[in-house]
C-alpha cells in the first residue's frame, strides 16, 4: 500500500512537470545511395563547394562568398536562400562537412502571441556530412545531417515546425540530391 501511495504521489508530482520540458532534442537523417561511377569521380563533384547547383535539383544558384562560404538560392516560391559554411573537406576520407549559418525568413506568423519566423527549412543548428566510399559496382554516397527543429519553445508547435516536419523536409532535400546525383553520374 505504501508503495502504491508513493507511486500516486510521484505521478501527481511528475505529470504536470512534463509540460515544462526543456527545448527540443537533436534529430538525425541519414540516407545512402549506390552510384555506378568511381569514388574519385563522385567525390570530385561533391567536394566542389560552389557547385551544388550542378547536381541538386532544388538549388538554382550557388554563390561563393569566400572559399568556405556559399549562398544557395532555391527554386521554390520567393527564391529563399541558405548560407552555408564549409567545415571540412577531406580528400583522403572523401568527407565533406558543412553547416547552415543563415537562412532567409519565408514568412512570420503570430503564435502564442509571439512572432514566429518560418525559415527556408524548418531547422536550426544544422550540420551535414557527405562521404563517398568504394563499393562493388562503384561508389556509395552517404549523406547525414543533424539538426534541431527551428521552433525552440515547448509544445504546442505551430504547423509545419515539429520535429517530424523538420526530419521530413531534410529527408526530402537529401533524397532529391542523392537521386539526381546518381542520374548525373551514371549518364
Amino acid at each position, binding site marked *: 500500500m505504501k508503495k502504491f501511495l*508513493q*507511486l500516486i504521489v*510521484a505521478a501527481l508530482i*511528475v505529470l504536470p*512537470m*512534463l509540460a*515544462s*520540458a*526543456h*527545448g527540443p532534442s537533436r534529430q538525425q537523417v541519414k540516407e545512402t545511395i549506390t552510384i555506378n561511377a568511381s569514388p574519385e569521380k563522385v567525390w570530385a563533384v561533391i567536394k566542389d563547394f560552389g557547385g551544388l547547383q550542378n547536381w541538386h535539383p532544388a538549388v538554382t544558384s550557388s554563390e561563393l562568398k569566400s572559399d568556405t562560404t556559399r549562398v544557395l538560392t532555391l527554386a521554390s516560391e520567393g527564391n529563399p536562400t541558405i548560407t552555408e559554411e564549409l*567545415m571540412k573537406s577531406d580528400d583522403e576520407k572523401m568527407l565533406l*562537412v558543412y553547416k547552415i549559418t543563415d537562412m532567409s525568413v519565408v514568412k512570420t506568423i503570430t503564435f502564442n502571441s509571439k512572432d514566429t519566423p518560418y525559415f527556408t527549412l524548418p531547422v536550426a*543548428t544544422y*550540420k551535414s556530412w557527405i562521404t563517398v566510399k568504394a563499393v562493388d559496382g562503384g561508389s556509395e554516397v552517404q549523406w547525414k545531417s*543533424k539538426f534541431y527543429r527551428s521552433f525552440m519553445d515547448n509544445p504546442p508547435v505551430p504547423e509545419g515546425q515539429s520535429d517530424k516536419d523538420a526530419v521530413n523536409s531534410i529527408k526530402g532535400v537529401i533524397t532529391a540530391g542523392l537521386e539526381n546525383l546518381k542520374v548525373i553520374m551514371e549518364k
Partner: protein
Amino acid sequence: MPLLVSLVYQKATFFKVAFFLTCISVMSGCNSHLPPSYAFITNQLDDSVSIIDIASQRVIKTIDIGYGKRPAGVAVSKTGHQVFIANPEGLGVAIIDAKTLEVTHHIPVGSGPVGIVSNDSGSRVYIADWYLHTVSILETSSANIISTINVGKSPAGMIVDDKKQRLYIANRDDNNVMIIDTSTHQILQTIDVGTAPFGLALSPSGQHLYSINVRSSNVSVIDTKQNKVIKTIDVGEWPYCAVVSPDGQTLYVTNQDDSTISVVNTQTYTVEATIDVGDAPEGIDITENGQFIYVANWGDGTVSIIDANLNQVISTLETGKGTRAFGQFISQKQ
C-alpha cells in the same frame, strides 16, 4: 635441455604466469572477494546494458533493463558492489549487482533522470533530472530518495569529490557549473563556463575540474581552489564527455560530430593527438592502470577500446543500438 622437458617447463611457467596475471587483473578478487573490473555500457535504444570484462576485453553479458526504459546514464562507485543506471523514459534508476550481474532494484525518480554519479563508497547516488532541474539523492542502503535539491536548468554531468565534500554539476541550459556541499546540500558557488556544458571530469588530485561544452566546442578548466575558470581549450566538434588519466596528465574528450577523441595535455592545455573512433562517440572512461580508454559510440552501437600508449583503437566491440554510457562506467578501479 631435452625438448620434452623444455616444453613441460615452459608450460608450467606459462601456468604460473597465467595464474599470477589473472590474480593481478582481479587483484581485488584475490584479496577481498570483490567482483572483477567490468565496463557497464548503456544501450539507450535497445533498453539494455552490455557488460564488458576488462581483463578479456569482451562482452560477457547483456542485461535487459525493461521495455521503453531507455537507459542512458551510468554510475559505478569506487568500493561498492552496485552499479546505477539512469532511465530517462523509465523515470527511474535501476540498480545492478556487480557480482551477480542482475538487476536488483528499480527506483522511481523524477521525470527525466539522465546524469548520475555515486560517491566513492556507493552509499549516496546523485541523480540529475533534465526536466525538473533538480538533483535527487539516493540512499542506497534503504533504496530511498532522501533529498531533492533545486539546481540550474537541465543538469547533465556530475562528479563527486568525497575529500572536499563536493558535488559538481554541469547545468547545460544555464551554461554554468554548480558546486554543492554534500553534507549540507547547499549550493556553494556557480561558475560560468562555455556554451551548453554536458560532461564533467575531475583530476585525481581534485584540483582541476573540466567542463565539456557542447555548443562552444571547448573545455573549461576550473581550478577548484579558486573556483574559477583558468583556461579554455578548443577541442573537436560538439564535444560531449571526458575522462582524466590516473596520473592526471591527460584528458580524453569525445567529439560527437567529428567521431574523434581529443587527447589533451593537462599541463600545457594543448591537444596533442586526435584519435578516430566510431560514429558519434559519447561516454568515455579509463581503466585503473590508465592503459585502456573505452569509448561508447552512439551512431554505430559499438565500444572502441583505445591503447593509451599507442593513442590508437585496438579493438571495437558490438554493444547495442544507441550506445551511450554517460557517466563513470568502469567498475572496481581500486
